């Protein structure tokens, strides 16, 4: 991004860790994570499965209390679920009894028990932005996996959150859908800037989308590396053929396959 990210820390993790098992003989799931995410920054997290990526996300969402360290958002400690966070899961988890539009409006109905005309207009605008207006009245099972996940993203944006947390959102999709939906996510993000934490298994996807990539170690999950992705935006399919793209993905790959070399 254009501006240098000095002292604009928005989400701050200071020595954050969590253990599910109180038994001290068992290592914690994650430990000693330090991370400053700037406002409207796109941070990707990669690491082997079971290294605590989802645990990290849950702590930022306020769904899980850290057992060490502190998470703060805009200087305020996170001590419970917060309504300025939107979450997108690996599975789209749409409600099969509601049509697309009602699924998008569901967070409002669920949180407050109702929604009004303006909310509906906002849902329609978001659906249009995601190219989904033609599907508004369809039921989820009439949509492809990629379309369902788009609806999942739109649903997460409904409450206009400052922070978008995405837990392997595209890993259930086929490679081509996945690339396209990644670019679509970037253009949504450009139109509606958010602070994004994006967990993925795909090193290429992380580099292609993010401003910075956090590489985590095997359990107990710690920070192995934090990589600045100095590739120009907007990112396109040409980005992938950029030599710098190859260098960056190689650097991450080294961490994953030869953890001691780095």
């Amino acid at each position, binding site marked *: 991004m254009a501006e240098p990210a000095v002292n604009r820390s928005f989400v701050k993790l200071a020595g954050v860790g969590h253990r599910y098992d109180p038994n001290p003989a068992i290592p914690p799931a994650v430990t000693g994570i330090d991370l400053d995410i700037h406002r409207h920054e796109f941070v990707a997290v990669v690491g082997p499965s079971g290294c605590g990526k989802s645990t990290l996300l*849950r702590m930022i969402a306020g769904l899980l209390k850290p057992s060490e360290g502190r998470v703060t958002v805009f200087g305020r400690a996170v001590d419970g679920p917060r309504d300025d*966070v939107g*979450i997108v*899961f690996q*599975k789209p*988890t749409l409600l*099969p*009894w509601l049509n697309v539009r009602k699924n998008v409006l569901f967070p409002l109905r*669920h*949180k407050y028990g109702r929604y009004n005309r303006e909310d509906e207009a906002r849902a329609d605008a978001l659906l249009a932005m995601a190219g989904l207006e033609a599907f508004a009245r369809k039921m989820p099972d009439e949509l492809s996996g990629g379309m369902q996940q788009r609806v999942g993203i739109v649903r997460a944006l409904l409450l206009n959150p400052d922070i978008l947390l995405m837990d392997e959102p595209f890993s259930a999709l086929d490679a081509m859908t996945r690339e396209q939906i990644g670019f679509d996510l970037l253009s949504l993000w450009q139109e509606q800037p958010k602070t994004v934490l994006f967990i993925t298994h795909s090193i290429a996807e992380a580099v292609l989308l993010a401003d910075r990539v956090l590489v985590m170690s095997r359990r107990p999950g710690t920070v192995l590396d934090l990589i600045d992705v100095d590739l120009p935006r907007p990112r396109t399919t040409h980005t992938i053929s950029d030599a710098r793209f190859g260098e960056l993905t190689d650097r991450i790959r080294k961490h994953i396959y030869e953890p001691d070399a780095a």
Partner: protein
Amino acid sequence: MSLTLPEGRLRRVLLGASPWLFFVALIAVWEVGCRLFSVPAYILPAPSVILNAFFDVEFSRWMQHLWATLRVALLGFLISIAVSIPIAIAMMRSEWLSRTLYPLLVVIQSTPVVAVAPLIIVIMGSDDPSRILITCLLTFFPLVVSTATGINETPPELIELSRSLDAPTRRETWQIRMPYAIPHIFSGLRVAITLAIIGAVVAEFVAAEEGLGYFIQFSTSFFRIPQAFAGLFFLAVVSLLLFKSVQWAQQLLFPWSLPRKGA
């Protein structure tokens, strides 16, 4: 030789008609067999004899017996629903309650209701309430289990979504968990409705002055075997229709909970 059907429209017609054709063939074999070997009617009456026996009984008598059985079965079924769904929800909300109640439920379920029925009649008298209780005892366990199973099958991500929205538990239950339980609840309801008929009939076997179960038992004890068969078939048809009604209700009220046709 293989049992494959021709392609296309004819195939679909045959596929739809084959259970009926099979049924008709079965009846025909039965009829012919009875006549051919002159099986006495008190051992196995021919279908035509059963049909005659059916029309020998006045229509209003049938309706009286039907109503007696139906009101017990349906009331027991409805009370069972009203009791078991809140119990399942309460057990989902509270680990303590679930641990306390579950063994009791298993004990009730594993006690043969047929053996308890006479005691219930002795204690509560031979009126509708005791028959309804017997029906409830038979039906509510499968309903509790299917509801509880359905509630627990809710994807954990949706529970996290609900928690991240800081929504009240009441809405988590009614807007997420219960709808997710619908397919399971309906498979429980299909089991329960047929058990409700069984419960009502068992209760009538013990003590009753009317009802289809009573009618069958009464006819048998007077060696009116064709009449007993007529009652049995009537009961089977009623039970089947109730089972189908539960399916229709699901189709009508919750079409999304059924697997999409042709998908």
